[in-house]
């Protein structure tokens, strides 16, 4: 877990399929975006559902350019991602 992330950092959502429940939607996996806000700390739903809640993690609002996501520029999509949903920085 990286505690050093900050607003303005470029981050990459983790690549690949995940087992079980997750709130990392497929459309952002592997994509690079920018942290625009910090949204506190929460337990990671994937681990909560698996019965092993662990410790709360930082949540970042990460903004992606629609051109990167869909090849259709002109808007942005901002989504909250838990720290462990991001590739190590």
């Amino acid at each position, binding site marked *: 877990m990286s505690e050093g992330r900050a607003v303005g950092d470029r981050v990459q959502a983790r690549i690949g399929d995940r087992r079980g429940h997750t709130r990392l939607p497929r459309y952002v996996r592997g994509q690079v975006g920018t942290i625009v806000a910090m949204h506190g700390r*929460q337990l990671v739903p994937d681990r909560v559902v698996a019965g092993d809640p662990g410790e709360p993690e930082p949540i970042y609002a990460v903004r992606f350019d629609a051109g990167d996501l*869909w090849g259709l520029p*002109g808007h942005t999509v901002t989504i*909250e991602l838990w720290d462990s949903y991001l590739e190590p920085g």
Partner: protein
Amino acid sequence: MSHVHANHADSPAHRGRVLERLLEEAGVVSGAELDAFLDRLPGASSNGARIVARAWCDDGFRRRLLDDAGAAIAELGLPGGLGPTVVIRAVENTDSVHNVIVCTLCSCYPLALLGPSPSWYKSDAYRARVVRDPRGVLAEFEFFPPEDVTINVWDSNSETRYIVIPRRPEGTESVSEPELAALVTRRGLIGTAAV
């Protein structure tokens, strides 16, 4: 406020949608009638409208709202805290940015503050399409933001819920706060209408 995943066949949300579809197919009720009913529910959008009108009239409140929406909303005696882990956040439309809210994974919505969400907000079509082609979806709501306005879509998939602060309509400088609140619609609070 629980995080019900609508794709589960046995989830309340799924059963609700099936029931709604059957009632519509049987001609008992139409989707438009249901939406009109939800719009009339106490608190459905009047809380949001009050918040927006106050932000338009009181710049200090507007700044506090953008900084810490939960605390600012509580100033109005409304439920700023939506639950032990749920946070509300306000995003503001400007002359260069328009915000639209969605929950692609299910149908997260600040229900405790704004009442039930519209049925289209929970539809697979809205959730799948608005992140990919927001202008196309907004056009179907007969809303056409200027081309030089950036559309920011917010996919609320954690414990954060959003409320959009629309732009104050032009020519309303002398309009009272309660009259301003009457201009704000539930769609405006989600971003599928200008106000």
